[in-house]
């Protein structure tokens, strides 16, 4: 039942000590506010990293060309390493566990795309069919590059959703002719990718066509493979084996860290996850520290409340108040202060997270918190605050009325 008098007394007590109560509430508010912000920021970092990884397969290994930094069997350092189709064949033919493989040929600068009266520039790359799995491209219309395209040096193109929208508007691009870098291609597919929208602003062509038409070489700029459901340790072993094979083929020291660059997405992702797990632990540590500080503040203030009200407690006891009446009164006051301040901190924290949620910075995205975690933290704080009030409340209950009434 709603006890008007009890609430009146609580608010009267709060009102009588505005500064003290405000400072205490501020401590609690700050505790929850910081916890929410830190958790949100932690999640923002995690989401940002997941977002960056979202458009690439996590079971992929990426191999980039480099320049040797060590002498090797009479060969000088500073030798650039370059890949060609034989490297691709090496990967396909000599290693078990490779699910998909692709090379990449980057056309220098953006290529001019001409369709009817539209002229727009987009990055264009030559790729193998396995590129679809490496990039986790989802075909929304038509098909991806296939082996026949490569074998027959077809002039076909697969375009990203953003490219399709910019060049073709509402038209269906499939089957349309599109001039890319002065050469006419037929659009055979349109793809979509999760994550960074820039990944959908790319045109993919059969790698054999690109090599023949634009460069007249068999050069590859990059190699990527996926490893199916291979465990992380096996992926690491495979990475090492590939490096050994590449070192033998391109004659560089296995210990040379700069001859080729290999990124194991699975390992990287795991490293990031471990890093963010550590951040989360740190966040909770700091957040719980803030809450404990808030609770100590409430406990302290309740001790002062009891001391300040000792005489009043004595009078009330003389008039018939039972120990339970005091415990309820002090307890309720502690709950009101922590509850209001805690909920305020939660709301403010969620509000700030909402404001910065549109912030698009690399490795920071959507700094959300699980509202239940926030509510649970607030509830814990309220309970802790209530317990913090319990000690002084029990102390108040024990004061002898005659002693209490003599207090200053």
């Amino acid at each position, binding site marked *: 039942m709603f006890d*008007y*008098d009890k609430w009146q007394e609580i608010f*009267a007590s709060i009102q*009588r000590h505005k500064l003290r109560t405000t400072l205490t509430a501020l401590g609690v508010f700050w505790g929850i506010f910081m916890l929410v912000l830190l958790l949100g920021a932690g999640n923002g970092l995690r989401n940002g990293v997941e977002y960056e990884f979202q458009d690439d397969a996590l079971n992929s290994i990426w191999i980039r060309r480099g320049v040797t930094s060590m002498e090797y069997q009479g060969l000088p350092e500073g030798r650039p390493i370059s890949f060609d189709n034989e490297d691709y064949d090496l990967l396909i033919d000599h290693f078990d566990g490779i699910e998909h493989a692709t090379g990449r040929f980057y056309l220098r600068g953006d290529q001019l795309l001409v369709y009817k009266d539209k002229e727009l520039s987009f990055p264009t790359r030559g790729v193998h069919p396995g590129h679809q799995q490496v990039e986790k491209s989802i075909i929304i219309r038509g098909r991806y590059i296939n082996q026949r395209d490569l074998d027959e040096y077809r002039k076909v193109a697969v375009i990203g959703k953003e490219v399709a929208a910019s060049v073709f508007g509402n038209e269906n691009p499939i089957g349309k002719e599109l001039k890319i870098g002065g050469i006419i291609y037929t659009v055979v597919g349109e793809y979509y990718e999760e994550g960074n929208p820039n990944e959908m602003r790319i045109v993919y062509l059969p790698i054999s066509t690109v090599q023949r038409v634009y460069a007249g070489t068999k050069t590859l700029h990059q190699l990527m493979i996926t490893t199916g459901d291979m465990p992380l340790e096996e992926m690491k072993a495979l990475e090492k084996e590939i490096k050994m094979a590449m070192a033998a083929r391109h004659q560089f020291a296995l210990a040379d860290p700069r001859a080729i660059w290999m990124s194991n997405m699975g390992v990287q992702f795991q490293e990031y996850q471990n890093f963010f797990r550590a951040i989360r632990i740190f966040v909770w540590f700091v957040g719980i520290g803030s809450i404990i500080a808030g609770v100590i503040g409430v406990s302290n203030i309740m001790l002062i409340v009891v001391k300040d009200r000792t*005489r*009043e407690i*004595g*009078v*009330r*006891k*003389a*008039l*018939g*108040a*039972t*120990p*339970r*009446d005091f415990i309820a009164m002090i307890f309720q006051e502690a709950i009101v202060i922590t509850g209001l301040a805690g909920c305020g901190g939660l709301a403010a924290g969620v509000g700030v997270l909402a404001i910065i949620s549109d912030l698009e910075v690399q490795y920071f995205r959507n700094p959300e918190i699980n509202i239940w975690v926030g509510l649970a933290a607030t509830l814990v704080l309220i309970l802790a605050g209530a317990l913090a009030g319990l000690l002084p409340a029990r102390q108040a*209950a*024990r004061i*002898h*009325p*005659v002693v209490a*009434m003599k207090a200053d």
Partner: protein
Amino acid sequence: MKAKIGVSWSLLHLINRNHPIDKMISLKKIRKAYRTDFTTLEVLKGIDLEIASGEFVSIMGSSGSGKSTLLNVLGLLDDFDSGAYHLNGESMKNLSAKEGAHFRNRLIGFGFQSFNLLSFKTADENVALPLYYQRVDRNERQKKAREYLERVGLLDWADHLPTQLSGGQQQRVAIARALITQPKIILADEPTGALDSKTSDEVMGLFQDVNDEGITVVLVTHENDIAERTKRTILLKDGLIEGDQMHMSTAKLSINV
């Protein structure tokens, strides 16, 4: 037939012996000491006292004689170490905090030298407070509080805070607060100690009225003229009762004849 007659001290004893009046307070060998780490100060050294229902008693004594301690023990505001204390026929030995609160709330009304009103509550809220601890409905409490404020002539001041009232008015509010639970006994520690003589006179008039209604009144005072307005004075010295005297001028007793 009920009649009020004046009786002498010896006659009173006779009446007490032959016509037992309800005992409101009965103390037997009450002892109370305050202990610190180094010393023990014995304040009450074996008090034997009986106060009948409807008596108007003053307790006098020099400073340190134990009069306030005795009143605190009577009011269950303080414990006693040994002896027996019966209030309204019930033993007050080893009461729990809750039981103590219950008896204080139901049987006793208090008056204090410094009034002990809650400064942030209005006069009527102060008066109503004891009923709050009886879980009386808010509206009923307020109605009764105003009724009792009217009795002490302060209805117009019901919405005022204690700081807006004079000392005499504050003591009258405190008396209204003491009466609102219709207690069996009123205990007052130096109720006129902070008041001028005119206001003291008014306050004593109120206590007289209360007593006339049959409520036992026990007050501690160091002023002879205040004690003389009561019907019986108990004199304490060094923690023991040194004198117990009826006042002839005012000694009236309701008895069944």
